[in-house]
Structures are given as structure tokens and as C-alpha cells.
């Protein structure tokens, strides 16, 4: 059984420094890729919600080759604490 996807995003961020919608989707594709919820809008929503809840913060933003906005987020201390406390060890690397 996979983690709920928002939790999986935070769990991934616990092990990676700077994460954006594309990179996290790339990493989680094997687990959630065939689901309809696996789209950029909902993943951006995960980041924004985690940010509003004070678990992650916006680290930087820039444009890619096609001038699309890329927002890079990183986990903060509260986020790490939440992962340590509530994410089952078997999901952590």
C-alpha cells in the first residue's frame, strides 16, 4: 500500500534538498503514475498546502527553457519532525 500522495510528497522532500513539481512527479511516477490524480495542478496544490501548513517553504523560483515557472520547495524543521513522527519507517529510505 502506498502512502497518501501528499504525505509521499513530504516524505520525498525529507530526503531531497530542493524539489519542484516536475522532480517529485518523476520520482513518484512508479507508485502513482497511472492514477488520474497524478497531474501537475494537484501536485502544485500539495506544495502550496504543505507550505500553508508550515511544513515546507519556497526555496527559489526560475524559468525553464520554455519560460514556464518552476518553483522549488524545501522541507523545514517542522516538516522533518512531522515525517519522523508520523511516517511509518518502512516508507523512509
Amino acid at each position, binding site marked *: 500500500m502506498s*502512502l*497518501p500522495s*501528499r504525505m509521499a510528497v513530504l516524505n520525498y522532500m525529507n530526503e531531497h534538498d530542493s524539489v519542484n513539481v516536475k522532480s517529485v512527479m518523476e520520482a513518484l511516477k512508479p507508485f502513482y503514475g497511472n*492514477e488520474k*490524480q497524478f497531474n501537475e495542478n494537484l501536485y502544485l496544490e500539495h506544495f502550496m498546502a504543505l507550505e500553508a501548513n508550515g511544513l515546507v517553504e519556497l526555496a527559489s523560483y526560475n524559468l525553464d527553457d520554455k519560460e514556464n*515557472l518552476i518553483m522549488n520547495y524545501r522541507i523545514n524543521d517542522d516538516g522533518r519532525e512531522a515525517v519522523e513522527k*508520523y511516517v511509518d519507517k518502512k516508507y523512509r529510505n
Partner: protein
Amino acid sequence: MEIEKGVMKRQLSLADNKKNALTKKFKTTGLINGVISGLTYGIYSTLVMVASGYDPLVSAAGFLAAPFVCSGLNDFIAGIWLLFYNAKKGRLKELGRTLKTKPGQMLVIGFLLGGPIANGAYLVGLAMAGAYAIPISATCSLFGALFAWMFLKQKPTKRVVLGMVLCVMGAIIINFVKPEGAPNFTLGIICALIAAICWGLEGVFSSFGGAMIDTDVAVNLRELISGLVVLILLVPAVGALKLLGGTIVAGTPLLWLAIAGLSAAISFVTWYKANATVGCAIGMSLNVTYAFWGVLFCVLFLGQTLTPTIVIGSVVIVLGAIIVTMNPLDLFRKGEVE
């Protein structure tokens, strides 16, 4: 070199513009969601009272039977509406996944308090004290802050304490003059208070990792679990199975409850969305305007009499609830933060 610098500069300002546009879009959507959540919760509160006005609910014996039948059907139907919504978004698998996690299980304990107990008490309060119960229930942010202080050691600031005092004062004002023809008025107000206390406690349970859970999924679980627990356990326990059957067969009240359930579903989804985009403080403050809407609709459509005490009391409570959750001055300082 100069040209390169120029290109870089243009790229940076374009990135700034795009980022600001996105932030602005999220903020506007968040504020709109907050307003809708308050409005739809007011509609929900009014429609449940409309449904209760039809037979067999209106002539039901005992003061618990009709409210529990209403809250059970309403929450269950809201849960079904949300299942459709989440199915459309492709998120149905998330429901089972969430239940298997610790934060998900803590949320469920909160749902049991906030669903069957608080919602049941709220509807009993509405049945007994009419629109007066609505602003009283809005004191839940006071209890939320109080419990966060007691259990989570989050000390309230002077501003929060001021907001709490205002909430209590508003509740006292509303209760000052009892309306005529409401024999169980004070009991109704007490029920609305029980609802507020349980909603406050529900907030405490969501602080155990609940922030990691997708709120659209959490709300869906809340409504389904609450509806099923009320219909399967509480309705038979208060001897209201016959009333439940009668309400379903009667049709009209069920139809009103279906629309009420849809309003409740929209209210919860938009409320959490507002919390996640403009922050809990503004989200909760906008949501709590349901007290205004609820009272207004009851006066407009249900012939509730408007007394000075309910007007002043609701304004004071809503103001108090807003001050508990946010510094109102922040609204005017918008530009400086960005």
C-alpha cells in the same frame, strides 16, 4: 556580456511576474473559497431547518430523534457527493491509504467528535433555539484556541484572549433575552455550546500530522464516517429507525437534506482550500461569517424574528472569532508582506 546581462535580467523579471501572478491567483481563489465556505454553511444550516419543518420530522417525538436523523442523512449524503467529486479527481484510492496512516487515524477520532457529536448537538440546538444557536456555535474558534493552550501548550497572545472574551460576551448577549415560544431555548444554546466545544477538540486531533493529509480526502472521510456512525449506531439507539424510514419515504425532506448535504460538502471543501491557500487564520475568519448568513437566511426565509440582542450578539461573536484567528490589521497591511 551586456546583452547576456540584459537577457538574464529579463528572465528574472519574467520569473518574478509569473510567480507574483500565481501567488495572486492563489490568494484570490483562497479568499473566494473562504467566502463561499461561509455562505454555503449558512445555507446548509438554514436548509436543515427547512427539512425539519416537514412531516414526519416536524412531529417526531423526543428531542434527539429528528436532529440525529437529519444529521445522519445530511452527512451521509454529503459524503456521497464528495465521493463523486473525489472520483472525478481520481482520488478514491487515497481514502483507504489515508485511513492506514497515523495522522489519518487521529483525524478519524476528531471526526467522531466533530461529526456525530458536534453536528448532532448543533442540530438539536437549531431545533430548540432556532437561529440563536448559529452564532453560539461559532465560538468553536475560542475553544480551539483554548484546547491548543491546554493540550498543545500553544500559549494564546493578548489578542487571542481579547477575541475569546468577545466571543463569550456575544454569547451572553444572545442569551440575554429569550425569544417567545421557545421553551427549551437555554438547553438549545447549551447544545450549540457542546457543538462548539467538540469542533474545537476536533481541531486538536487534526494537529497530529493532519497537515500531511489532502483535505479533500479528509473531508470525504469525515462526512462518510459521521453519516454512517449516526445512521447505524445513534439513530437506532435513540429509537428513531421508524422516523428515518418515514423521512426517506416522505421524499420532500430527503430532497432538502440532499441539497443541505451538497451545501455542507461545498462548504468543507472550500473552507479547507481557503485554509491551505490564504492560511488558517483568514480561512477560519471567512468561514465563521456563516453565523451572519445563517441568521440572515433564517430571518428572510423562515420568519425568524430579528431582535437587537441576536444582531449585536452575532456581530460581537463573529468579530471575536475573527480576532481569535487573525490580527484584523493584517488585512490592511497586505502590500508590505509581499
